[in-house]
């Protein structure tokens, strides 16, 4: 691993100043960054350790019923917070379907948003990758594309965003709070990550030195708590990244769907909100025909980026099944295998 300067700032201002220098990177939990540094995929000249900054580690309940999650809250602490899991069960299920217990104990909320793709070509420093080395080319194109995108990709990059947490968050209108040299501002999570276009190295709206300080969920997100699930297809029952996943949340009033929230994971360069699919469900009954129609709408713009046409049909089925699971009701207790299609939950509909 390359040598680096290590800075441990005491305030936001010190952190932002130290991280605004070229080659600087923030260190929080480090679970993704250390792996990338060991492989030489990233080589920061300076690490700014924000893990001890005050005021970033709390789960705050807001007066309006929303929640503000400090950027340093650990994935496991958030998922196991009983009030949070009760109000936002799909978010807790998504968190617990990701990584392993040891990683969730270290990984932070802010870091989850900023984790890098798991595209094998991004990790292969001997090969070409536009995300790692702009202009070098994309060796993923034309190759084995099981884990590559079918939505939102470009000729320059077909990598997916690997987060589960972000999928549930984006479905529920999460907002990201950011601090930078110009002060603090906020941006909807849906607009936080950028599509690759011609500049796949620019993955978010963050400018150099800018720091995620919190993620907020609005009060309205909790109105879906009775019908909210996360479903994730992966090559191993646990501790694997999604081939395709979906967060689905419904508000059902008098037998009809009053509101729907749908997002997909594993299929796009960013957590992918499916607004057209949501609209297709307003006012209709929570049944398979309508769920299939919504799933069609969710994948309407999808196209293969390699030998991964199967993911389009797979994702359609995951969306329809996640909706069916959500309609059946949030389980009183999270299944032993969160997000798994193999979980023995009463009322599971088979794909």
């Amino acid at each position, binding site marked *: 691993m390359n*040598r680096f300067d290590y800075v*441990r700032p005491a305030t936001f201002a010190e952190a932002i100043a130290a991280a605004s220098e070229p080659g600087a990177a923030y*260190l929080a939990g*480090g679970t993704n960054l*250390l792996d990338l540094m060991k492989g030489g995929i990233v080589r920061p000249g300076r690490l700014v350790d924000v893990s001890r900054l005050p005021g970033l580690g709390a789960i705050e309940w807001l007066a309006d019923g929303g929640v503000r999650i400090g950027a340093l809250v650990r994935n496991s602490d958030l998922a196991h917070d009983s009030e949070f899991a009760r109000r936002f069960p799909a978010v807790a299920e998504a968190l617990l379907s990701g990584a392993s*217990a*040891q*990683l969730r*104990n270290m990984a932070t909320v802010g870091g989850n948003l900023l984790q890098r793709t798991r595209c094998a070509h991004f990790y292969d420093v001997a090969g070409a990758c536009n995300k790692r080395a702009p202009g070098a080319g994309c060796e993923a194109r034309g190759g084995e594309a099981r884990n590559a995108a079918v939505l939102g990709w470009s000729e320059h990059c077909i990598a997916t965003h690997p987060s589960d947490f972000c999928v549930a968050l984006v479905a529920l209108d999460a907002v990201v709070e950011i601090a930078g040299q110009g002060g603090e501002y906020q941006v909807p999570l849906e607009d936080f990550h950028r599509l690759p276009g011609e500049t796949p190295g620019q993955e978010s709206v963050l400018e150099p030195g800018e720091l995620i300080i919190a993620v907020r969920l609005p009060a309205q997100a909790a109105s879906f708590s009775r019908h909210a699930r996360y479903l994730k297809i992966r090559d191993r029952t646990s501790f694997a990244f999604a081939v395709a996943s979906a967060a689905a949340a419904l508000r059902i009033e008098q037998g009809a769907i009053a509101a729907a929230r749908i997002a997909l994971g594993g299929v796009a360069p960013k957590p992918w909100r499916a607004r057209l699919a949501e609209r297709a469900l307003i006012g209709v009954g929570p049944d398979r025909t309508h769920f299939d129609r919504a799933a069609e709408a969710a994948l309407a713009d999808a196209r293969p980026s390699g030998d991964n046409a199967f993911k389009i049909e797979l994702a359609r089925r995951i969306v329809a099944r996640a909706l069916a699971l959500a309609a059946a009701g949030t389980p009183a207790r999270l299944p032993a295998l969160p997000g798994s299609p193999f979980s023995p939950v009463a009322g599971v509909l088979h794909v």
Partner: protein
Amino acid sequence: MTEPSASPRPIRVSVNGVDHERTVEPRLLLSDFLRHDLGLTGTHVGCEHGVCGACTVAFDDQPVRSCLMFAVQADGHRIGTIEGMADGETLHPLQMAFWELSGLQCGFCTPGFLITARDFLARNPDPSEQEVREALSGNLCRCTGYQSIVAAVLEAARRLRQAPLAGLGKS
């Protein structure tokens, strides 16, 4: 604020209840600090990128990957390793159950499994088999096929429910 520096930095870490003060390079991994600087070689290093779980230690009582942490991140914190699991000559009930039910063969992965399982049972004293399998999914074993490991954790859970340990799961 400390001036940025790649030069060695003093840290103070409590490991198994004993305070250690050392001066370390910022890029030194916690796993290497434990093994090389403190001589605690019970923490094993397998894949070195956070997949296999052999390097699992307790960080303020929660299992983490010591190969994905810098030693400077542990400054001021408590670390628990396999060396602190037994009470003198008396093995922890998890260690006893692993021994009696053959929850290990070569033993390379065992410290990571034990640290992970100790925390899991502290939070979930009466788990189902599926919950045990999920809890251990971040630890790889290439010998046992996991059957005997899962059985040992369930057996240890049963014994711990009958005779709880004081300070279980604490480092």
